[in-house]
């Protein structure tokens, strides 16, 4: 009855099939996005992928995508923010007052608007993080309060027009600094845009290559070389296809440049910064994070400050796009941003999600919107489809989780 040596413990039940299903879960969204693009390309006889239409999709959805970046962090942290639509309206109004009525220079006005957004986030973050009221309640209150403040500021009419710089941030395109080049049957295309696209692809390839080399150096497993190259080529083809189409139309929209920078910055922040990691650990297991010394309250607070600042950025861009700050601006934007995050693979319980996923989710809804309006579907049917897509995306997520 005495055992002198330690008996072997049973091996961990991590089978290859469970790893496969995790991969399926993560890549499902991209596959679905590709399928939706193919579907609408066929239904619209290719109109979806016309240069001007691609440009429209990006410009029309830019503010929702910016909100989605902030929202995914909120949701990873295990919270929700219902107030962003009203924050968009209020910050748009603030920006209009600062530029149109007070005549402040536009960079100062934009900076002050972003600061006011951060303050709005801080006010809500205080009640959520330090006072312990559920985010759902605090931001529901915020949704009403900030809409009320917008109406107080604006009365019943809009303020405009905005300075050209703010309008071109929302609607404008990079200039044709180097002229056009001929692309055979595709016609002329802007050289700067093409070079920027090539630089992005080259930069991406280089960083992936260095990451791979470093991982190999530490003895970690990496994708086999053919898979690695295939992934790079895939990304390069998609990016260049979009860039070529844009270059054929009116160069790169400034909001695309902004969005690319935000996507890159926030992805890095979420994955590789101590702050980003703490958001994941809070959402994954609040108690464990607390007992591991994570400053749970401070992190939660700053996540909401960040959300407020990004909502202000979306507010500036939305107001600039319409060339006026209106009292009903941003209505139901919070729902689009939340839907984007969940379609993009976030989990309701928190702890799961990716910035790129949220952006893909937002684009997916944008493509559905755009594609359905191209084929002349009435708006109620667009709503119906978007609702079902959201349900299907989360159902798929729950299903893969249960199977794992």
């Amino acid at each position, binding site marked *: *009855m*005495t*055992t*002198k040596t*330690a*008996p*072997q*413990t*049973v*091996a*961990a*039940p*991590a*089978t290859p099939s*469970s*790893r496969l299903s995790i991969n399926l879960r993560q890549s499902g969204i991209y596959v679905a996005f590709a399928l939706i693009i193919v579907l609408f390309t066929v239904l619209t006889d290719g109109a979806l992928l016309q240069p001007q239409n691609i440009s429209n999709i990006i410009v029309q959805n830019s503010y929702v995508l910016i909100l989605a970046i902030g929202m995914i962090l909120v949701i990873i942290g295990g919270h929700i923010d219902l107030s962003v639509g009203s924050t968009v309206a209020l910050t748009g109004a603030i920006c209009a007052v600062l530029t149109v009525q007070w005549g402040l220079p536009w960079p100062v006005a934009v900076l002050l608007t972003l600061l006011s957004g951060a303050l709005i986030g801080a006010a809500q973050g205080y009640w959520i993080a330090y006072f312990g009221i559920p985010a759902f309640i605090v931001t529901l209150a915020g949704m009403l309060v900030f809409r009320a403040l917008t109406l107080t500021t604006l009365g019943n009419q809009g303020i405009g027009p905005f300075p050209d710089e703010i309008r071109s941030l929302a609607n404008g395109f990079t200039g044709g600094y180097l002229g056009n080049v001929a692309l055979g049957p595709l016609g002329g295309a802007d050289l700067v845009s093409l070079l920027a696209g090539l630089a992005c692809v080259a930069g991406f390839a280089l960083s992936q290559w260095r990451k791979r080399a*470093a*991982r190999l*150096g*530490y*003895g*970690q*497993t990496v994708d086999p070389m053919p898979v690695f190259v295939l992934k790079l080529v895939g990304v390069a083809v998609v990016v260049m296809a979009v860039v070529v189409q844009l270059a054929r139309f009116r160069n790169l929209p400034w909001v695309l440049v902004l969005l690319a920078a935000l996507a890159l910055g926030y992805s890095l922040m979420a*994955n*590789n*910064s*101590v*702050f980003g*990691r*703490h958001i*994941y*650990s809070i959402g*994954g*297991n609040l*108690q*464990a*994070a*607390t*007992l*591991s*010394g*994570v*400053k749970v309250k401070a992190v939660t607070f700053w996540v909401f400050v960040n959300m407020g600042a990004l909502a202000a950025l979306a507010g500036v861009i939305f107001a600039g796009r319409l060339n006026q700050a209106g009292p009903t601006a941003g209505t139901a934007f919070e729902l689009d941003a939340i839907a984007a995050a969940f379609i993009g693979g976030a*989990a309701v319980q928190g*702890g*799961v999600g990716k910035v790129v996923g949220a952006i893909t989710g937002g684009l997916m809804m944008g493509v559905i919107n755009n594609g359905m309006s191209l084929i002349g579907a009435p708006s109620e049917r667009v709503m119906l489809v978007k609702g079902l897509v959201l349900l299907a995306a989360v159902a798929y997520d729950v299903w893969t989780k249960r199977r794992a």
Partner: protein
Amino acid sequence: MSDEILVMRGITKRFAGVTALHDVSLSVRRGEIHAICGENGAGKSTLMKVLSGVHPDGSYDGEILFEGEPCAFNGVRDSERRGIVIIHQELALCGQLSVAENLFLGNERARRGFIDWNRTNHEAQALLDRVGLRENPTTPVNDLGVGKQQLVEIAKALSKEVKLLILDEPTAALNDDDSQHLLDLLDGLRDEGITSVIISHKLGEVTRIADTVTVLRDGKTIETLPAEGLSEERIIAGMVGRDLEHRFPPRTPDIGEEVLRIEDWTVHSPAQPDRVVVDNATLSVRRGEIVGLAGLMGAGRTELAMSVFGRTYGVGISGRVVKDGQEIDTRTVQAAIRNGLAYVSEDRKRYGLNLIEGVQRNVSAAALEKLATRGWVNENEEYTVAERFRKSMGIRTAAVSTPTGTLSGGNQQKVVLAKWMFTDPDVLILDEPTRGIDVGAKYEIYSIINDLAAQGRAVLVISSELPELLGLCDRVYALSEGRITGEVSREEATQERLMQYMTRGQNS
């Protein structure tokens, strides 16, 4: 004999590889009070859950005869229909609802779907009179103290025409007066012909009220004794047994000077701020020493540890934490970690791990700053660290990216230990480090604990398993009702001695 109301034969129950009950038998005579005694984890609560249908028919082996008929319960409702009612340690009352509403919850006094309030409150009053609770039936349950809530539970059982009443630690949260009243009530119910099965750690109560005592140990029935003339010492002898096996890796202690000293530590309950949970406790741990903290459920062990570690439990905390002769700040978790403390929780799934993340991100979670420059984490270094712990601690996982939720209990515990070892602490508080872990993995955890001590760290182990404390520790403190009631060295420690300290109440 046909006066047996309940016979359980050959009950065996397994949880994910761990055998909680092994061929347990129990027979209860009609109209008696039958006490079940045993250490924490002996299987008492599991046995009662099998009986009441919480663990449904088919999830265990063996047979249950109630009033001579075989039973196959698929849930609590089935057993209640037969007149078996269980009252759990955590009371199952809806605090916002009134006493009367709670009494008839799921069993409403209604006419055509609408509650008949007159009948509800009238019948409730009659039930309250029976248990001697002088309260208005419309009072919200939250307005009552724990003792009175316990009486509401019993009244609820009476409303269901109970024949066999099971009480799991009914007096654990009660003060002396309330306990006294409850025991008197059970006496009275016995006279009415209601049979009771009572699980209790308070052996004084057991010898006072019970007619028969059954002792469980390690999921087995050890003995059933008539309570007449039974001494507490005799019950303890049955509870602890005498089979200390060679389940522990060998170790030569190398003990240095004192590292940590907790002085005059007093903690109050956050739920009832006037209740003292830890009462003026003083204890110390030396370099390279493994010190045990023994105590029964509710003695305040975890509360002591968590209140020291960043005040993560309790209110009205007073006392000093001294490390290397200096008083240190442990008011936040960050400060406690910075001052070289680590606390491994008793519930690794709730308090220890992020189950949806891999080993790598769990191991780094408490000391991410060590892997970061200017706020940016070096994932490759993180991977190397995780791999190092995977090898040195023998964490069995497909990869360090595998979610920890899919690992076995023993491997999960190693991940938690790795997380805290990576913070390089001077003092580790390990709360139930081997709970829910199979025997082989326990040996490995013991080896890791020995290594920690050999590295010159001070280790404080909280455990419900006395053999574990005796096999592992150089010194053991006993805690009872929040007070340190004894301190024994490895040489003088016996299970009987510790159990005596652990059951020493305020009155004795």
